[in-house]
């Protein structure tokens, strides 16, 4: 099955064209002294990273295996995106704010850094965090501060940087890291395994409902650095956790690479909700600069009745290449994917999900909302596989595209593989445009064109926004309006 819809009437300027340009509000650079490796990638680079982090041998060995594997792999070309070849030797693979000793409280964090987070609107200070979120902030490659670790520790929850987890909880890391996304999985996953510098580690013990939303803000500050973080979340039997991830990066003319890996493991009756609002710098109108966001995210529902839910709102990045996936191994396990992806200017997004049904009675739901404006290219690529053992498995996919203007495009590539005759797969897809009739109707009622567009777009995304934690949903809505309402910004 394959359907593609392209609108290429060239000079049919609609009033919407004016609305879809907007500035990037997070484009500041923080002047902080940092310890940065010179550009280049070799086994020596990896030895140096590992040494900086004082890692045990098994981690270094794993990195080197990944690196050798990566050398033998090719940059994937199947995605519906175009970009110049990435020169992996021109990037630096390690950058950390200087002065970083072990930090015990926020008072010890560089005030410039806190200021940077304040500008991003991250609730890093404890008072704000009291409102409900614990924040693990990753500034370039090193995790800077972890708030609320103590109250989490009381509940038995481990929430720390990956580097710290490797030092303090090596058995857990060794057991699970790479168990969902092996280093050999794909080109960027292999690169990440070789050079990852930090990330977040979460462990929820058996029967524990994590007492607060956990959240990480990633930010690429240093020029010419790639960011390769790894996140690992383990939810033991009967536990549950909701994790929020937000991303922004300063405005730069050159492209930057972000190749993260996220692994989730849910045991019997455990549930993990992973929400992302991604607003990496998308590049300018002509497509200069911006983040290349090539990410591997995968969750394994290992236990019976386990539940993994991915929700993402993607408005940034020059190129996004990302398929948060679920391996539904345990019987009666449930996988969900809710996504809003916006492309405008010259942005390209090739995103979707994979739902691999292995256990009996497994269920998955996919709701993908793609919005294209300007010259944006939005591709949904989804795989639903019903394996032999997936007796009575169910999938429902809803894949909607909304086009703003005549020069953008939406493409849909659903791949469906059914090896079990009992399994049921439903796929629905729609493509719509905001029509002049709709805009006129709203304006006749006194609503400005911009407000009308944002009202219709928000309506289009409602199904996904309602899956986000409340405050995040409000943020996501604001972000979306900001992204699409250029005329006022």
């Amino acid at each position, binding site marked *: 099955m394959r359907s593609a819809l392209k609108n290429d009437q060239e000079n049919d300027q609609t009033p919407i064209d004016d609305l879809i340009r907007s500035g990037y509000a997070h484009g500041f650079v923080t002047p902080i002294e940092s310890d940065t490796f010179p550009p280049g990638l070799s086994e020596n680079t990896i030895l140096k990273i590992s040494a900086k982090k004082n890692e045990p041998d098994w981690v270094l060995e794993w990195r080197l295996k990944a690196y050798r594997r990566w050398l033998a792999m090719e940059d994937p070309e199947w995605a519906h995106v175009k970009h110049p070849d990435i020169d992996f030797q021109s990037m630096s693979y390690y950058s950390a704010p200087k002065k970083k000793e072990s930090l015990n409280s926020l008072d010890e964090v560089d005030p410039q850094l806190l200021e940077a987070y304040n500008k991003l609107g991250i609730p890093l200070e404890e008072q704000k965090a009291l409102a409900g979120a614990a924040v693990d902030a990753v500034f370039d490659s090193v995790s800077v501060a972890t708030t609320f670790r103590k109250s989490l520790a009381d509940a038995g929850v481990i929430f720390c940087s990956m580097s710290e987890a490797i030092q303090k909880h090596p058995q857990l890391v060794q057991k699970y890291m790479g168990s969902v996304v092996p280093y050999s999985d794909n080109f960027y996953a292999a690169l990440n395994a070789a050079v990852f510098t930090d990330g977040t580690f979460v462990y929820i013990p058996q029967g524990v409902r994590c007492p607060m939303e956990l959240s990480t803000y990633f930010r690429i500050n240093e020029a010419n650095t790639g960011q390769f973080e790894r996140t690992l979340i383990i939810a033991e039997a009967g536990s549950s956790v909701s994790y929020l991830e937000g991303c922004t990066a300063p405005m730069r003319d050159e492209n930057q690479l972000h190749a993260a890996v996220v692994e989730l493991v849910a045991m019997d009756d455990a549930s993990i909700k992973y929400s992302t609002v991604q607003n990496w710098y998308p590049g300018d109108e002509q497509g200069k600069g911006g983040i290349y966001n090539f990410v591997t995210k995968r969750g394994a529902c290992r236990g019976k009745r386990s539940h993994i839910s991915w929700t993402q709102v993607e408005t940034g990045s020059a190129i996004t290449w990302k398929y948060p996936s679920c391996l539904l191994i345990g019987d009666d396990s449930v996988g969900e994917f809710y996504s809003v992806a916006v492309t405008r200017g010259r942005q390209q997004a090739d995103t979707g999900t994979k739902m691999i049904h292995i256990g009996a009675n497994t269920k998955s739901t996919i709701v993908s909302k793609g919005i294209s404006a300007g010259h944006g290219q939005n591709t949904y690529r989804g795989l639903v596989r019903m394996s032999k053992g997936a007796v009575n498995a169910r999938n429902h996919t809803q894949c909607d595209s909304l086009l703003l203007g005549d020069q953008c495009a939406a493409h849909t590539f659903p791949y469906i593989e059914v090896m079990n005759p009992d399994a049921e797969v439903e796929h629905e897809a729609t493509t*719509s445009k905001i*029509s*002049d*009739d*709709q805009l*006129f*109707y*709203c*304006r*006749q*009622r*006194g*609503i*400005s*064109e911009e*407000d009308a567009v944002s*009202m*219709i777009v*928000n*309506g*289009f*995304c*409602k199904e996904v926004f309602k899956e986000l934690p409340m405050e995040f949903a409000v943020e996501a809505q604001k972000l979306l309006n900001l992204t699409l309402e250029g005329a006022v910004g």
Partner: protein
Amino acid sequence: MLRINNLHVKIEGKQILNGLDLTVNAGEVHAIMGPNGSGKSTLSHVLAGREGYEVTDGQVLFNAENLLQLSPEQRAHKGVFLAMQYPVELPGVNNMTFIRESINAIRRARGQDEFNTLEFLQLIREKAAQLQLDEKLLKRNVNAGFSGGEKKRNEVLQMAMLEPQLAILDETDSGLDIDALRVIAQGVNSLRSAERSIILVTHYQRLLEYIQPDFVHVLVNGRIVRSGDKQLALTLEQKGYNWIIEEDAA
């Protein structure tokens, strides 16, 4: 209140309105009738400011102001309301939210305070009850999957909420069942006032039994060729339009 002089309008190079004159004073109700394709909806759209129409000659004054230079939303802010012949669907946009956005946008533009949620809810419930509009429709998306008659009721509900100075109803009676017609007519009648003007575009004399017009006009080939009182509508019902067209040509 509204003064249209010698209005000429083209769509895609085709002349649709051809020297139309119409004056509507405050407090008056005018009915416009005429054969299919004669330009009634075109007139309504031009008054509301829809794009795609080229005004080649003539002028439109609304309270002595040049209406044609205003954007659709500015006209709405000044009190022009059009109940559309074919109301569009807004998937994903909750009807109640939409009406609140609308009323508050207009209030903001007029420098008035926005309605708070409670005031708004009370008002819309009251109006919906008057129009016997099922409250479930308020919770659904704007016009999405509404029946033809429900869409028309929803237009009248919006009119009742916005209390416009000039209300143009383009075939709001078409597609309504007999009871609905009566209810809608009551809704319109309750809006009649010395400060408000109403233009009713209709094909059916029946509506005019419920809403007594001060004037009835016949629009043919983009011009008003005959005006009269409600007796004219009765004559049209009996004799059709041909005799007028013939007399006009003669």
